[in-house]
């Protein structure tokens, strides 16, 4: 996470922020439950203010249907841990990038059978080139793209030429 819990001037505020991060770190993404929403990089900040806790969430894709479910789950989980006053803010800028997926998140994806994004997208051209995607089962680099799109907005569909297994690839954005 780029917005890791920052040391706050106020120790009790810092403790509250750390506690909230710990809660969010346990909250699974509804569509890829092996990932927490923190692994996914969609929790942009947590700020303990006098007016209450403030959490910045960014959607992965504009139309991701899980966004509202995630907001509801965040609100419920924080309320269950004493943050009933938490305020959720939608953060659009900078836009979410698959490069924000944590290292732990990438390892969890692979273990779950989803190939993690290969390279962060830094240019339009990079998006045009097909990345070399490794099979999450047998690690072979001999794979082919079946479809640009998969079971959720954030995934494409691939097949391994070596072991024959079809798999999801978490696409770069």
């Amino acid at each position, binding site marked *: 996470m780029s917005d890791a819990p920052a040391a706050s001037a106020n120790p009790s505020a810092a403790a509250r922020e750390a506690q909230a991060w710990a809660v969010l770190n346990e909250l699974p993404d509804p569509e890829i439950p092996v990932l927490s929403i923190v692994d996914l990089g969609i929790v942009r900040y947590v700020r303990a203010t006098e007016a209450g806790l403030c959490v910045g969430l960014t*959607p992965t894709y*504009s139309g991701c249907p899980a966004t509202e479910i995630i907001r509801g789950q965040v609100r419920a989980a924080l309320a269950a841990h004493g943050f009933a006053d938490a305020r959720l803010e939608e953060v*659009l*800028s900078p*836009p979410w990038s698959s490069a924000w997926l944590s290292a732990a998140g990438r390892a969890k994806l692979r273990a779950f059978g989803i190939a993690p994004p290969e390279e962060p997208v830094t240019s*339009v051209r990079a*998006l045009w080139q097909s990345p070399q995607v490794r099979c999450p089962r047998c690690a072979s680099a001999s794979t082919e793209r*079946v*479809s*640009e799109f998969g079971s959720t907005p954030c995934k494409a569909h691939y097949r391994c030429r070596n072991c024959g297994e079809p798999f999801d690839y978490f696409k770069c954005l």
Partner: protein
Amino acid sequence: MSAPEPGDALRAAQLRYVLRLADTSLVLGQRLGEWVGHAPQLEEDLGLANLALDLIGQARLLLTYAGELEGRGRDEDALAFLRDAPEFLNLTLAEQPNGDFGHTIVRQWLIDTWQLQLYAGLSASSDARLAAIAAKALKETRYHHRFSSGWLVRLGDGTPQSHERMQQALDSLWRFTPELFAADEVDEVVCRAGIAPSLAQLQPAWSAQVDEELRAATLARPPAAPHPWYGKRGVHSEHLGHLLAEMQHLPRTFPGARW
């Protein structure tokens, strides 16, 4: 920058401008949604549904913002479901029927290439909210364009049959493209205020990209067409009313329905 617009005039133009962007995405997303369960292959079915999802997501962000600019308490749902055709300000191209798969691809590709230029320019808007929405939409549009331009080339440079159908689709849709760059007083006001890029300045890059990709697809660019279409002013082709009837039927029949 010339003399600033009076605040009310600028706000009114800004609202109409945001509604044009929102409605173009919403109507195109609704059209793509009609393919669900009918596309030639499962992969393309998923692809078109995913494009629709992104477009409707972008429309939601824009409509929510439009509702705030308007300040009359209308939210995204009220704007999407409770306006009639003359109040919709989408580009006429977006509402054109799907036709066959190739026709849908040509329509998508024309709008994708336009949105690529538009959102790149709009990412630098003086309106921070619009700039943020555009920067997010731009990333998604790049992926859409990869899909639509990929199919444009595969089908255009495919069999004689697929080539002919793609050329026919291009010939029938090209007449709607002048509207993409025809600036009226709304465009001029928001451009002067630094809210939107100049449409005239976007056109050469769009045109060059279109030519390059048409060449790769072995398709011929149709001759320049006059500009009789005014969807973005609320004057639509006969197709929009039917689309809205389907899209709005449920929320109008059961106001406030939830699931």
